[in-house]
Each structure stands twice: as structure tokens, then as C-alpha cells.
């Protein structure tokens, strides 16, 4: 099988890999929307969506009712509805940009996935090789660069809709995204100061960050969330703001903006924005997991290589790769659950509070944090 795979042209290999990753992300983004509704329901002491079921599935004894209670079929029917309902194009919009905006949103959201490693396997020499679509050395920089282009989708959508609520929504959203991007970017600098040891190769690769969290020894095996709690916290808060999640969902703000920047959208174009939002969440959670939660290492001080050694799986890279992907996805879904949990706990901030928190709260905090860590790292690694 491996020989057949390597005999394929590189182009075909990359295409299959890319489609496989998108084929995983699209359903996860959809499932997140159902998880969102279920978590919301459970927190509010409701059972949540639990009705839809195809009539023939009712005959499956235990699994049928269980899946029905989980609302799996609601998810499918919602997705199908989005595909098949009429796609309205209001007469007052700027048509080219109106259609372009959701395409931009979803393209950028999926592009960031390419540089995020999502698992690892052990090669014949016992080295950990990350699984990713494009192993570029600029890693985190590529994620930030592409993800921050996402603000153009919001601006395009809000402006081309030629309507006041989308316009206000997109202005708010772009101001918020730009404000919190600073804190987000600065908060990860201590991590990269720490992993770029003087004399070694300079790197911004996310896989290297995980490698650094799976070294031997007390300090080596410690996840960066314990080593740099302030960075992790600020990164998480800024991530909430960047993905437009409550308590920072100024872009939508249903009570005062109807639906925010996508008020005029419907059907599949709206669904694309939706998928883009959840993909941003997914990629954001993945980056948080890689940077601060040890990536695919099962527990602090237990690296993937050790774990595979205990299970006696060094010789089977496919099994190790699967286990690493499961561990990694588990952590990512945990972070996504945190997103939902916080959403139903913390009420929305006012716009001025968001700006105040961003500019005079988080930004000085991360700059101070950076200075402290830069000095400490300079002393330790000199």
C-alpha cells in the first residue's frame, strides 16, 4: 500500500491528502453546530433537538433511538436544507462582491488548515514525523497571515450588502478583529523565543513547538500552558474575539444588529459563512492545542513516542498516526467545548468594554508578559 502511495505523482498525493482533510473538517464544522445546540440545550436544562429520524432508521433497535436523541438527523436535514433551499440574491446588493465574500471566507478558513499539523507517526528511525499538508517553516506566521485576511470577507459582506445592519456589523467586527490580533500575535512570542534556542535553527513551525513539549525531564515534558499561563490565557481570550464567539460576538450581536454582517445572506452562501466560522474555531483550537496543550502528546510528561513504546506500536506508523490524530482531535474538541461552555456562561460585552479590554487590558498585559519572559529566557538560555 505504501509503495503504491509513493508511486503516485506528488500532485495527486497532495490532492488526495487535501481532500481528505477537508472531508474531515467540513463534517466536524457541521457537527460542531449541532454540538453547539445540544450543549446550549443541556446547559439550559433542555434535551435539545431530538426528533428527526428517517422512518427506516427507527427499526434499528438501540442505535436508532440513541442517534435520534443525539439529534444526528437534525444535523443532516439542516445541511440538506441549506443546499436545496432557494438562494436569494437581493436586488440592492453589489452582486460581484456579495457572491465573492462567502467564497473568500471559506477559502481562507480552509487554507489555514494546510499548515496546521494534526498528528504524528514514528518513522523507522524512531523519530516523530508530524502529519500535515504543507510542512512549511513559517508555520504560525502563515496561520496568522491567512486567518487575518478573513476580515476582508466580513468587510466585503457587510459593504456589498448595501444595508445598514450588515454595514454596522462588519465595521464592528473588523475593528474588533484588528484590535485583538495584536494581543493574539504578541501572546505567542514567548513560546517561540523559548523554542528558538541560541545556536539552533530558527523556526516558527508548529510541529517544533510540540516537539519541545515532548522532551524528557520535568521542564521538558511540561506543557506550555503551565510554563506560560498568561500567554495561554491571553491567547485564548483573543481567540474568542478573533473567532467572533460570545462574549465577543460583536459581529453578530443579534439584539442590536439583526444578524450582523451576514444579515442579507441566505441558503448556501450563509452556510459557507457558518462553516467558515466553525473552521476558524477548529483551526484556532488546533493552534491553541499545539502551542499550549502539548499537541498529540497524551499527557504532560508522557510523549507520543513513550506512549507508543508502552503499547509496543513503534513498528506500525499507521496505528501510531491514528492514535495521535485521535488524541489531538480529542483535545481540539475539548477546546471547542470550552468555546460553547463559555458562550452560555458569559454575557456579551458592550462594544466600548471590548475595546477597553483589548487595548488597555490585554495589550499592556501581553507586552509586559513578553518583556518578563524575554528577560527570563535570555537568562536561562544564555
Amino acid at each position, binding site marked *: 500500500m505504501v509503495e503504491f502511495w509513493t508511486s503516485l505523482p506528488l500532485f495527486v498525493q497532495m490532492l488526495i491528502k487535501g481532500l481528505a482533510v477537508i472531508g474531515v473538517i467540513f463534517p466536524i464544522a457541521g457537527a460542531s453546530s449541532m454540538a453547539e445546540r445540544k450543549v446550549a440545550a443541556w*446547559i439550559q*436544562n*433542555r*434535551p435539545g433537538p431530538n426528533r428527526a429520524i428517517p422512518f427506516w432508521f427507527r427499526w434499528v433497535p438501540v442505535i436508532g433511538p440513541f442517534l435520534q436523541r443525539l439529534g444526528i438527523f437534525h444535523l443532516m436535514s439542516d445541511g440538506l436544507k441549506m443546499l436545496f433551499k432557494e438562494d436569494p440574491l437581493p436586488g440592492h446588493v453589489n452582486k460581484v462582491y456579495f457572491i465573492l465574500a462567502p467564497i473568500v471566507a471559506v477559502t481562507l478558513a480552509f487554507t489555514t488548515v494546510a499548515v496546521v499539523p494534526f498528528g504524528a507517526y514514528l518513522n523507522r528511525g524512531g523519530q516523530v514525523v508530524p502529519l500535515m499538508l504543507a510542512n512549511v517553516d513559517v508555520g504560525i506566521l502563515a496561520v496568522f497571515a491567512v486567518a487575518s485576511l478573513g476580515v476582508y470577507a466580513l468587510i466585503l459582506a457587510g459593504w456589498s450588502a448595501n444595508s445598514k445592519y450588515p454595514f454596522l456589523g462588519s465595521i464592528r467586527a473588523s475593528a474588533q478583529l484588528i484590535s485583538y490580533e495584536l494581543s493574539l500575535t504578541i501572546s505567542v512570542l514567548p513560546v517561540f523565543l523559548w523554542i528558538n534556542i541560541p545556536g539552533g535553527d530558527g523556526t516558527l513551525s508548529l510541529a517544533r513547538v510540540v516537539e519541545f513539549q515532548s522532551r524528557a525531564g520535568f521542564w521538558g515534558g511540561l506543557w506550555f500552558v503551565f510554563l506560560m499561563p498568561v500567554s495561554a490565557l491571553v491567547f485564548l481570550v483573543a481567540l474568542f474575539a478573533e473567532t467572533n464567539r460570545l462574549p465577543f460576538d460583536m459581529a453578530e450581536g443579534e439584539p442590536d444588529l439583526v444578524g450582523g454582517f451576514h444579515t442579507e445572506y441566505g441558503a448556501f452562501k450563509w452556510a459557507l459563512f457558518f462553516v467558515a466560522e466553525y473552521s476558524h474555531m477548529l483551526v484556532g483550537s488546533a493552534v491553541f492545542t499545539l502551542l499550549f496543550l502539548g499537541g498529540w502528546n497524551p499527557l504532560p510528561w508522557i510523549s507520543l513516542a513513550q506512549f507508543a513504546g508502552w503499547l509496543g506500536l513503534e513498528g506500525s506508523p499507521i496505528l501510531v498516526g491514528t492514535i495521535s490524530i485521535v488524541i489531538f482531535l480529542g483535545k481540539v474538541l475539548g477546546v471547542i467545548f470550552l468555546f460553547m*461552555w463559555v458562550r452560555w456562561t*458569559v454575557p456579551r460585552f458592550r462594544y466600548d468594554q471590548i475595546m477597553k479590554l483589548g487595548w488597555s487590558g490585554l495589550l499592556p498585559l501581553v507586552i509586559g508578559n513578553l518583556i518578563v519572559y524575554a528577560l527570563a529566557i535570555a537568562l536561562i538560555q544564555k
Partner: protein
Amino acid sequence: MPYVVERTPLTFAERTYLPQILGGLKTTWKHLFSPKVTLEYPEERPTIPPGYRGVPTLVKDPNGREKCVSCQLCEFVCPPKAIRITPGAIPADAPTANVEKAPQAFDIDMLRCIYCGLCQEVCPEEAIFLQNQYSLSGYSRGDLVNHKDRLYELGGTLPDLHFKWDKKRAAEQAGRAQH
């Protein structure tokens, strides 16, 4: 009694929001696993409290006599004019012939009814009651007009033991002016 609320300045911990957010997360975490309060309607039905005013219905007395004497007071009092009664005579050879009248037709248009209960209030014979029926649906306007047979089906029997008309007849036969 008016009183002044002390507004102490926020402490540093409070100004970071974090302890409050963690406290809130704890609360919502508990709710995540607490029993659900939803009543899953078609499978589970609500318990109707006493005194509930549902769909108006007609009742019979324990002997099976229809209590309505078609005096039409409910028809006159009905604010949205939902009730329509066609009075009819009771045949002279019937055992309850002394009641003289009974409704030939009794229609309540549930599209008009406002569930005010004035018909029940005004009825001198205790023949019409707003009962527990709360779920009402139909495929046409005609489906939502309750005719006499449907009204008795919904209403059932009122277990009162007045037997007013039997006593009246007994008094009449005994030659008393009053029962």
C-alpha cells in the same frame, strides 16, 4: 423601606473578570448534568390543574338526560358570538317531557371562542362547562366547529345529584306548588 446600597470599588481580582467567569462556568457545568425540565409534549402530557378552563363542553346528568334546556342565555352572553343554538321541543311521550325543551342543534365555533367562561357562568342549568380539553386542531374551518354530539362526547356526565326536573315533576304530580 429605601436603603443605600454600598458600592465598594471592585477589587483587582474582580476587575480581571476571571473569578466571576470561573464561578459562572461552575454554575453552567452543574446545569449541564442536572435533570432536564422539558416536557416532551406528544409523548408526555401536562397535568391539568383544577379550575382549568379548556374547551367548552356540554354535560349530562347521572341519569343520562342532557342538561341543556336551550334557554339560549349562553348564546346571548357569548362575547365573540361563538355559540349557535337551535331550540327544539322534547316529545310529549318522553320520560323527561316536563323539561319541555332541549337543543336540536348546539354549535360552538372554536375559531371564535375566546375561552372567557361566561357561558359556564351564565348557565342556569349547569349544563355547559369549560373542561380539561386543551388540544384542538382540524384540517378545515368546519372541523373546528364543535357540534352537539361532539360537545357531549367531550363533556361526559356531571356527577351532581340535584335532579331538579325529577323533583319538579314529583311535586307537580303530588299537587305541591314547590318541590
